[in-house]
């Protein structure tokens, strides 16, 4: 259920970031891929691949592209990031940053490759790939910072300090 909520929130965020009054660079950000990264800790690689597939299909549908290449790219990227996270037992900020960079890079490259095999001209070139990777990586950094802040907020040590202060 939380996964579905996060997925929808990320989808809305991804759509919202393309708003004309926001900085144009934000449009390159792919929060849906962060949901894929987030599932890499809980699901097995195939499960993450399914999640990536859903994220890619949603991206394709909402970007009004050909529906399919994004799904395939998302599945491949999810599988790859899950394997890497498991292989290197990533945790904390490294998990978010490496995961977001890897998933966006894998997704973009696979997407380009699939489009190339279909003989379709992609709607963005290398600079677009770079922007997507950079912005998704930056979002991963923000997610890592947020997670750390949340952990600090919920930490038993902080709770103890608060209790002691009240005494």
């Amino acid at each position, binding site marked *: 259920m939380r996964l579905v909520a996060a997925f929808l929130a990320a989808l809305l965020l991804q759509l919202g970031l393309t708003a004309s*009054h*926001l900085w144009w660079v934000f449009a390159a950000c792919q929060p849906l891929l962060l949901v894929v990264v987030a599932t890499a800790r809980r699901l097995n690689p195939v499960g993450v691949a399914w999640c990536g597939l859903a994220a890619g299909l949603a991206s394709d549908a909402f970007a009004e592209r050909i*529906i*399919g290449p994004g799904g395939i790219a998302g599945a491949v990227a999810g599988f790859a990031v899950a394997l890497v996270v498991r292989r290197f037992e990533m945790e904390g900020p490294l998990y978010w940053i490496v995961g977001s960079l890897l998933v966006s890079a894998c997704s973009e490259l696979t997407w380009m490759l*699939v489009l190339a095999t279909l*003989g379709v001209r992609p709607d963005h070139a290398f600079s677009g790939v770079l922007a997507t990777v950079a912005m998704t990586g930056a979002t991963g950094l923000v997610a890592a910072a947020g997670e750390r802040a949340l952990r600090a907020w919920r930490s038993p040590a902080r709770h103890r300090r608060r209790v002691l202060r009240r005494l």
Partner: protein
Amino acid sequence: MVQLRSRADLAIVVVCVGLYIGSAAQVRFPLGGTALSFAVTTISSPALAIGNAIGRTWQVFWSGQRNLRSTLGELRRLRLESAELHRANQLLSAEVTALRQGSRLLAAYPSLADQAVLARVIARDLPRTQTLRLDRGSRDGIHVDGPVLAEGGLVGRVDRVLEHSCRVQLLTHPAAAAAAAVEGVQQEALLVGGDQPHLTGLSPYTQVPLEASVLSTGSEGIYPPGLLFGTTLEARNDGLFTIVPVRLAANAAEVTAVLVLAPAARGAP
């Protein structure tokens, strides 16, 4: 199909292959204006509206910040400019005052105008040394003992000359002295400086009218005769002389432009 459901890894591969085929089909037969597009537009519009609202708010905030900064910068610049203009205005006002005073001075003594040097007071030390400093010096033809005239009357004499400036010993200086005569009184008297300049040397019980003009006689060899020192106050007897306090005509505290007469060019006004 049952086997595919149980093997998720194979299922995703099959789905991907299906998607690939579907993509190829879409390439050949592009979809356009479908219900999907309408759904996408409908779903994305609230998110876009929120994004635009946030963007607009940020832009307003940012432009406000920028405007505030520029306004503060403009205010700072205007304050500096205003201070500069205020200073320039003060200087110009002083200049105009001095010019007016100089002009009136030249008009008051037309016969001396050719032989005198118009000078401006650049410093004054009335409480301690009872002197003025003028912006003219030996280079401008100023000499020691040159009488100094203000609009109201005499103020003193030059006692020190430098190349570009000179110092004036005021009539209020304790060492100042000048030969003077009171209008309506035959005798010549000596005007002595000090906090209250006064005439001395008049014989006792001399009748000195109040508010009578005290003029220079030129006997001491410094001041040309006939120039106004001031007016008399109430006379009193002090021993062998009648002492007459004098209210000086020129207020040294307000003088800004003076005429310095050349000692060699002394003559009647």
